């Protein structure tokens, strides 16, 4: 079969970038398996407990770029105990020991310690890219180590992490010789920043394309930075408050006008609305705008701004924009593909909220919409049906009605029909989150129509085991299923145990599954880890099989039960 030398085949494989395809290639024959194995550079591990670092290194010794995900998704909402797991240190240690030439590391929901960061910075000479999303466990000391030791650092991207700020001079730790930065994001840091060090760093980074500042960086520093880096494509503004009559402000205006490459804006972590006109000149070329962390901008200012962003493809905004504001978005942003509307007041009575009207307006004006996250006060079936009709291209559809069991606000009926319309119309739907009053019927629709669905999030929905069974039997491609507060029990859990090996994970909390049911499942499926999380201490005494489990998280794995689980997490 192989008429070519290995190097030629390897060169051909270089053009195959998708991991899925590369996996398929490996199955063709032993020699292709071998060639592919040594040439694989990018590895994605969706669940760090599905495999061990040693096996990864054994399988792909040439790995250069690694993505690791740790805690289950619901950890974002404080449903998972802090010490549950997801420690990256063992991975770093193993990779370092095996002298893997790691260049890129991307992590999500993992526990990353300063020791881990320090080890990364020392063990991998060519380390270039560090991306941390929703991680915790480290301080600015760890960042200092990365800055100081990674000589070829290109990307340091910290997104929404909890970082303990030691007020050190981590920015100063970038040596003068470091000129390779392409992307720097420290927006999530809370502490003070050495502004002079920041300015000098930007000045010596000619390749810098993406810069996201923390709140501690004031407007006058921003102005100086923009003068140095007019080539920026992606900017996260820290503080944006200044006297608009001042010289600094007019210098800022000049600097901004020179930023011809700017395509993406975010941040405004502190902002005075009257300063916003400064960014009008670049609005017409923006493709991405994230104002979801910008406090207190009145709806009128938001719409004034957005009206000018006619090329917008992605918009993240707070619900202060209101339904009318969304109407402005709909009429101005015809290329919109992704919209996220976050609540500014999650427990409020909705003075500044959005309803189904805003969503319908968007669907009418933005037919290219394919990704939605929408927090709203209320929804109706009719609106969802209209949206489904106008926007058949949804890949991600996440609707969150702030009152999780609210029915259709005009008919008082469950929202089954509305979501049914969505899954039926959007044949490419891969991710779906439900809310509102929902019966087993909606799951029947999902099981029947959502053929491409990979991730489903359910809360406070359904009437019986049938609901969950519709999904498990119908959705052939489902990979992640997360359920909370639904009346699904052992029958649903145990009817098709083999299904879980085709999935990455299943989360069930505050449902009706019992300890006995979970034990049965664990016994039948040795290649699953079935974890029970019990934070309620009383449970330890009465370990009755008939007891309902508080939280269950199961996932397929090749390496058996993990050894780093805390006391209240049992692997059955």
């Amino acid at each position, binding site marked *: 079969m192989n008429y070519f030398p290995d190097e030629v085949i390897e060169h051909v494989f270089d053009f195959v970038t998708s991991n899925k395809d590369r996996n398929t290639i490996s199955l063709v024959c032993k020699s292709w398996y071998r060639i592919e194995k040594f040439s694989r550079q990018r590895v994605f591990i969706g669940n760090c407990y599905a495999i061990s670092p040693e096996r990864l290194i054994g399988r792909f010794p040439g790995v250069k770029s690694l993505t690791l995900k740790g805690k289950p998704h*619901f950890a*974002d*909402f*404080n*449903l998972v*105990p802090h010490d549950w797991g997801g420690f990256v240190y063992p991975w770093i240690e193993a990779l370092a020991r095996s002298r893997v030439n790691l260049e890129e590391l991307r992590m999500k929901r993992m526990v990353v310690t300063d020791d881990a960061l320090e080890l990364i910075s020392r063990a991998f000479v060519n380390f270039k890219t560090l991306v941390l999303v929703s991680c915790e466990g480290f301080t600015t000391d760890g960042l200092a180590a990365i800055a100081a030791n990674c000589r070829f650092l290109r990307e340091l991207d910290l997104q*929404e992490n909890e970082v303990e700020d030691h*007020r050190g001079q981590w920015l100063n730790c970038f040596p003068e010789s470091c000129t390779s930065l392409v992307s720097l994001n420290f927006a*999530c840091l809370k502490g*003070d920043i*050495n*502004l*002079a060090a920041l300015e000098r760093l930007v000045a010596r980074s000619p390749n810098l394309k993406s810069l996201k500042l923390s709140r501690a960086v*004031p407007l*006058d520093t921003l102005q100086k930075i923009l003068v140095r880096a007019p080539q920026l494509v992606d900017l996260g503004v820290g503080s944006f408050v*200044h006297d*608009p*009559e*001042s010289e600094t402000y007019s210098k800022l205006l000049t600097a901004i006008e020179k930023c011809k490459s700017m395509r993406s804006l975010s941040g405004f972590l502190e902002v005075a*609305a*009257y300063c916003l006109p400064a960014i009008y000149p670049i609005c017409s070329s923006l493709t991405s705008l994230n104002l979801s*962390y910008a*406090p*207190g*901008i*009145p*709806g*009128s*200012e938001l719409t004034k701004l957005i009206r000018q962003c006619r090329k917008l493809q992605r918009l993240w905004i707070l619900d*202060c924009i*209101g*339904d*009318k504001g969304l109407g402005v978005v709909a009429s101005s942003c015809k290329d919109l593909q992704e919209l996220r509307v976050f609540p500014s*007041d*999650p*427990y409020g*009575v*909705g*003075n*500044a909220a*959005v*309803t189904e009207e805003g969503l319908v307006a968007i669907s009418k004006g933005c037919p290219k919409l394919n990704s939605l996250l929408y*927090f709203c*006060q*209320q929804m109706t079936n009719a609106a969802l049906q209209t949206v489904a009709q106008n926007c058949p291209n949804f890949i991600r559809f996440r609707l*969150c009605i*702030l*009152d*999780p*069991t*609210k029915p259709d606000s005009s008919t008082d009926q469950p929202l089954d029909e509305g979501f049914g319309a969505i899954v039926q119309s959007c044949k490419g739907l891969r991710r779906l989150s439900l809310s509102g009053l929902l019966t087993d019927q909606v799951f029947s629709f999902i099981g029947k129509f959502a053929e491409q669905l990979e991730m489903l999030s359910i*809360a*406070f929905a359904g009437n019986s085991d049938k609901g969950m069974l519709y999904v498990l039997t119908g959705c052939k491609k489902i990979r992640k299923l997360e359920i909370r*507060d*639904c009346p699904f029990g052992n029958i649903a859990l145990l009817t098709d145990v083999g299904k879980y090996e085709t999935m990455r994970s299943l989360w069930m909390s*505050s*449902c*009706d599954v019992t300890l006995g049911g979970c034990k049965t499942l664990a016994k039948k499926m040795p290649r699953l880890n079935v974890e029970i999380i019990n934070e309620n201490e009383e449970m330890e005494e009465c370990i009755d099989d008939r007891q*309902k489990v*508080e939280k269950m998280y199961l996932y397929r794995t090749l390496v058996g039960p993990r050894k780093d689980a805390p006391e209240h997490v049992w692997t059955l």
Partner: protein
Amino acid sequence: MEPPPARGRDVAASKRESAGEEAELELGLGLSVGGGERTGAKRGARAEPRGRILTARDFPSSVGTKRTADESVSQEGGGGSPTSGSQVVGWPPIRAYRMNSLVNLAKAPRAEDDLSPNEKGKSKDGLEDKTRAGGKADVDGREQKHIGFVKVNMDGIPIGRKVDLNAHACYETLAQALEDMFFRQAKTIDLTGAEENRQVKKSSKLLNGCSEFVLTYEDKEGDWMLIGDVPWGMFLTAVKRLRIMRTSEVNGIAPRFQQRSERQMRKPI
């Protein structure tokens, strides 16, 4: 631009109905049994008939706390509907990081406050001062705190509030916010209708001297000062906390106060 207010009330009503139990979902401040901001989570069981156990809306962080034994409301097993959004752990599903940042999120100044050029001019000096030389990091890393939430106490009310000074760029909006906080809610503290009316009459501008109350602040040197004398930015660097003081107590500075109040009344607002 604003959604019709009626809808908000309907939502609240249906929220209560769908709650099943009698959720005391009052959203304002009153005399709190068990006091303090973080008892919001324990609301349902202990609400008084006057509905005065309330969460200060500025602190949604109660959702970030682990479920305690008291929060037994919604966790009896599947299918139970929550009594109210904020009593349910992990709902609404917003990343904890984002939730924490909401604490700093100002409510948008009502009435779509575009600061007029006049006001911008007025606070010019203040804003210059606010240019971080004093506000944020210096090169030698001298510690400067973010001016954010400061305490506000009002004479006659034992429980204080907190207000985010970052949400305001001038005295007007700050005073308005404080009036909303203290005077509108003060209505509900009183029992009789008669008292209510009296309170309502009190809710006039704190800044122009027409009110029975006066807005003061404690500065870094520990002195109590009348609000409004210095430019906004300078005020921000000096203020430690606020106090809504009875005019009758403003003895020492009364003459100045009266002069000033006359000036204020002549100023176009």
